[in-house]
């Protein structure tokens, strides 16, 4: 399947793409979001406390990918070189040069050279200031954006898979499967999600995958109703009947004939699930039950903004980044919805 070559698209998909582009706001949002996402995927090359390339003694070194000891550059210790250290920098610059990333801090780099106590206000060295542990806010935002979006995407994909499977089974088999499935979902969705998440995350030390798993327990229900309704409808479509008359088995019917129908509804919902996932992660981080301490996270930055009201750059920058991500995703979602709208011919 050549998904990315429009020439092989069906006319229906071409029309959808045209409709998507017609929604200018959504289309530009997609461009901006993709740019931000792809850029932050390479966050290590943009914001890091190590240079991208070091030329020393006619030889090239890549500190981001390899660890070099200080002695490599003529220093004293066998530990990894601290390139931000003035002594090491001098050693290297004597016999070569260093190419630094745009931001000379990683998300966990502590700036010991602050002239004021942390949190420091924006300055030439720290463009958006530092947080209360003297870490650069720009670097943390870049990494935080990446982890939020990646987490959101992972959660969206997994909960869509579970949701589609459950919805498909309920819609296809109907009867008792549907009855009990629906009742279970009603009970399950009645649970107070945030409290349960808080309780569960306090049992274990949550990392990225633990959090994903725990949140998945409650986030898969969003799509079930849509997919179930779509399957219930598709069950009686004539081409589905025709496929059964040809002798196709249940699995084949579900995959080749009914799933594509449900995919439209699923794709339309996905951007909104993504925004929901990002918000949930942020609120958990804000409460301190999210990603492990030290991780770059937008929620944690907001919490810092709350505790350091005298440092408005913390709350403001986290707020702006979050607002931008969510707005972009909602605009994209609207455009996707337009693209799949059958009334817009």
């Amino acid at each position, binding site marked *: 399947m050549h998904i990315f070559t429009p020439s092989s698209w*069906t006319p229906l998909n071409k029309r959808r793409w045209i409709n998507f582009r017609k929604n200018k706001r959504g289309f530009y949002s997609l461009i901006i979001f993709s740019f931000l996402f792809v850029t932050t995927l390479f966050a290590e090359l943009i914001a890091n406390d190590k240079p991208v390339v070091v030329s020393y003694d006619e030889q090239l070194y890549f500190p981001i990918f390899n660890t070099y000891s200080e002695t490599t550059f003529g220093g004293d210790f066998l530990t990894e070189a601290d390139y931000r250290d003035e002594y090491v920098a001098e050693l290297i610059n004597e016999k070569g040069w260093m190419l630094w990333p745009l931001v000379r801090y990683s998300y966990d780099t502590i700036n010991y050279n602050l002239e004021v106590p942390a949190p420091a206000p924006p300055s030439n060295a720290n463009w958006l200031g530092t947080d209360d542990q003297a870490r650069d806010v720009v670097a943390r935002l870049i990494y935080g954006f990446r982890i939020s979006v990646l987490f959101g995407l992972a959660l969206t994909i997994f909960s869509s898979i579970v949701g589609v499977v459950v919805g498909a089974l309920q819609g296809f088999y109907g009867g008792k499967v549907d009855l009990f499935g629906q009742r279970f979902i009603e009970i399950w969705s009645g649970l107070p999600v945030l409290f349960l998440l808080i309780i569960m995350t306090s049992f274990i030390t949550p990392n990225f995958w633990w959090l994903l798993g725990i949140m998945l327990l409650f986030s898969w229900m969003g799509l079930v109703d849509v997919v179930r309704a779509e399957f219930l409808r598709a069950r009686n479509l004539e081409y589905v*009947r*025709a*496929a059964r008359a*040809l*002798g196709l088995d249940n699995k*084949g019917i579900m995959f*080749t004939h009914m799933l594509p129908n449900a995919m439209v509804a699923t794709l339309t919902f996905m951007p909104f699930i993504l925004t929901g996932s990002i918000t949930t992660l942020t609120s958990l981080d804000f409460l301190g039950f999210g990603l492990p301490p030290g991780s770059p996270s937008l929620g944690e930055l907001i919490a810092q903004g709350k505790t350091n009201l005298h440092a408005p750059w913390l709350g403001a920058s986290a707020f702006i980044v979050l607002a931008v991500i969510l707005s972009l995703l909602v605009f994209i979602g609207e455009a996707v919805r337009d693209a799949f709208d059958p009334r817009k*011919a």
Partner: protein
Amino acid sequence: MSSENTSEQLMKEQVNKDTQIQIKNLSVCFSQGENVIEAVKDVSLNLYKGETLAIVGESGSGKSVTAQAILALHPKQKVSYPTGEILFNGKDLLKISDAQMRSIRGAKIGMIFQEPMTSLNPLHTIEKQISESILLHNKQLAIAAADLKRTKKTPLAIKHKVIELLNLVGIPNPEERLNAYPHQLSGGQKQRVMIAMALANEPEVLIADEPTTALDVTVQKQVLELIKSLQKKLGMSVILISHDLNIVKHYADSVAVMHHGRVIESGATSEIFASPKEAYTEKLIHSDPKGIPHPIPEKSPVILSSEKVNVWFPKKTSFWGKTTDYLKAANDISIQLKAGETLGIVGESGSGKTTFGLALLKLLPSTGTVIFEGQEIQGLNQAEFRSFRRDMQIVFQDPYGSLSPRMSIFQIIEEGLLIHNISDKAGREKIIIDALEEVGLDAQTRHRFPHEFSGGQRQRIAIARALVLKPKLIILDEPTSALDRTVQGQVVELLRDIQAKHGIAYIFISHDLAVVKALSHHVMVMKQGQIVEQNSCDEIFNSPKETYTKNLLEAAYFYS
């Protein structure tokens, strides 16, 4: 109407008939994205006072578009009228304001639509819906109604008017039906209510857009008779849009034949039918499926027999989940079918003919005995039955719904071959090409998608899909109902040839007696899930025994 009045009109007609609506050089364009589609091209029509003008044509000929342009019913943003005018009482309807148009719609020109099922609001009683259309245009009554609104009562004057209208359109016991909701009425009754709404303000013109297409034949006749008698009583002019020439011949004074957005021929009905000038008109008039099926080969073995097949759906269940009442969709149906034979199943909607067909293929659960090629298939589960699927195929009614829009026709036809592991890749390609050629399609087009084909071509694709498996039995569930008359004839001929060539048995389900006659050896008439009569085709058509069969034949053959 007094006799003076009539004679005066007659005199006028002799000199110069009064024109009610005159359409001059009308073109209608629709914009779809950047494309502009000209749906109606340079159409001129005259509707005379008190007459019926029929606009006939096949689907897509622009007949409905023309009629809807009269009432400006097209979405404003998408439609444009490059040329032409529509004169009604001297005013050009294309130029008047929305407010003026609203005062004409429903008051001066009424309209009834094809689908009575969706044209009525399911949440309101028929009294409310009819009185609404009265109130919209009758200021006096509207003021009275506003006064009475506090008491939440419909003013008596309106109530009387509604009852009068329901009487007029022939709804029995109208007083009791006032509070009925649309779902409590039959299809014919709904169409009557629609007519009552259209007539509420005694319009001068009634536009009937395929008013009977969605109805059963016996009901069709009643509704058309009703329109005709109302026209006489109220002195209306009627624009009747139809694809059915039998109806037109019987009910219209003049006819306009449309083809590809143009009026290719128009004139008095008798003239057009007696001596059509255009070849296309002639083709339309003589498009009824003709001929009889090829004889069944001698000593054909019986391949399918059913005994007392029941398809019951649970209607009521007791508290403990035990079913206490059933909807008997098909009851005690026994048939016998030889190889190469066609059994026609005839009945009105809801008679259970499709249900029975689906049950034979185990697409619906049923009880009773079904024996296919000497083997009992009733007790088998889906997996065990799969090997039989190859021999028993089905073609559905709706050629738009029965082909997956996401697969190319090559993939659609290949699906069955893949399921049953027939041949290798190259072999399958050859089988598919042969099948496409056999059903009269260009094999070059096999990588296109269904939406690129017309209704008739799609039905051919569906037949090809069934054919590639070399089945012994094909169930044809109204395969021609969604097609234009001229295309129907072609499909019938194709089916007949395929049967003669491969000796396939058909079960042909249809409500259209002309098509059944052209294709069936045996005919079974069904009503409300029961067999009414079962006999050879000749016997049924020439000497029906049951009254129901006679009524059915009369309604269908009444026009010709």
